[in-house]
């Protein structure tokens, strides 16, 4: 990449172009946009998280076997019709099954070109299925996101790193409303007989840790069908494999104690850059996690 003669001027021009673009103006991307997924344009490479298996689907862990495909939703409601997305009509929808603790995950699978800063920004909202005439604000257990990363095959270190963040909305009927991170996964289990495939449940309900100062009362509109959209920005440095910033709407959170899941590198995942979203329900009701758009950017 050529160095501009006047970096300040180039940055001012880049910023002016971003601000004048109605699609990108509400994002603050780093210099290189890796992907900008506006779900009015389709699925944009987002799919379901399939659990690992070898020779037999029965060996998929039950927590993964329950996963299904994300949908494109117009947020249609039974009582006032189509809600639509932040802009346009469609948002990516991740829906759980109607079973306490059920979870679903949407994922996009990439690799990275350079170990440097990356930033993910997205606009989201969540609601349970509106099958009761009550607010139902404690039916969605959590919504969250994370990366699944591994260093390059020529790097000196050899780690797979999985930063996770979730908004724990409710637990056992209590409206908790706080951000949490996850420093540990479950034990690895070998699948099949070829010694090629293992599995672990990095999204298991155990092991979440409160982010210091991480309580946040998100806007949750006053009947079970109205939604408001929220903004998240999460900064991570692939060079140090550490979180460097996290904000949601008007709140900036301290990530100095944030820890990622850290496990030895696996033999086939070099330079992996996976981004995922997930939802969990706290009741016998489907939880719906909607993402209007995602911007993943990097400094390279």
């Amino acid at each position, binding site marked *: 990449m050529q160095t501009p003669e006047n970096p300040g001027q180039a940055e001012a021009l880049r910023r002016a172009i971003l601000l004048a673009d109605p699609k990108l103006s509400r994002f603050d991307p780093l210099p290189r946009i890796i992907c900008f997924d506006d779900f009015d344009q*389709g*699925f944009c490479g987002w799919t*379901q998280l399939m659990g690992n298996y070898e020779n037999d*689907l*029965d060996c*998929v862990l039950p927590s993964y*076997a329950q996963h*299904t*495909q994300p*949908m*494109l*939703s*117009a947020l*249609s*409601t*039974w009582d006032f019709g189509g809600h639509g997305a932040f802009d346009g*009509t*469609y948002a990516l*929808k991740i*829906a759980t*099954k109607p079973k306490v603790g059920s979870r679903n995950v949407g994922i996009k699978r990439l690799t990275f070109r350079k170990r440097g800063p990356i930033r993910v920004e997205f606009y989201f909202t969540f609601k349970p*299925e*509106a*099958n009761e005439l009550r607010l139902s604000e404690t039916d969605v257990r959590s919504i969250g996101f994370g990366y699944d990363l591994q260093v390059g095959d020529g790097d000196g270190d050899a780690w797979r790193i999985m930063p996770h963040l979730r908004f724990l909305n409710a637990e056992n009927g209590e409206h908790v409303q706080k951000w949490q991170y996850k420093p540990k996964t479950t034990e690895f289990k070998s699948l099949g007989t070829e010694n090629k495939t293992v599995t672990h449940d990095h999204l298991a309900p155990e092991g979440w840790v409160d982010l210091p100062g991480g309580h946040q009362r998100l806007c949750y509109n006053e009947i079970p069908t109205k939604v408001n959209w929220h903004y998240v920005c999460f900064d991570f440095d692939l060079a140090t494999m550490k979180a460097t910033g996290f904000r949601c709407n008007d709140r900036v959170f301290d990530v100095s104690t944030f820890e990622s899941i850290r496990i030895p590198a696996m033999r086939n995942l070099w330079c992996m850059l996976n981004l995922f979203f997930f939802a969990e329900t706290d009741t016998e009701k489907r939880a719906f996690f909607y993402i209007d758009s995602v911007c993943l950017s990097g400094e390279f």
Partner: protein
Amino acid sequence: MLRESQSAVVVRNEVWRGRLAIEPYEAGWAQEAIIFVTALKAAVGAAGTAHVEISPDGMRWAREGTSFALPTAMDGVTFARVGHFGNWLRLAIEMPEGSELTALATIHTKA
């Protein structure tokens, strides 16, 4: 602009017995769908029946009018073509007494 299309695996390696319905699938962007059911193992007993259902809200369902016999042989595939379905699709399943099917159900939609 190419037409958007999607292949969604909505049921994978689940054993169907008795009467049930698969999870709702929202696809108001699509004009047409084909719903396939694949038998991942040989069915036990007689063939079941799938009924296509549509819904105004993803919660209350009505029969669309299309029904098809489920496969019985391992890797057997049966399907229904559906158009003009609105926003929501699902299958209601009826398996005869004592029958079961290990199913893969996929919905293939196109704008």
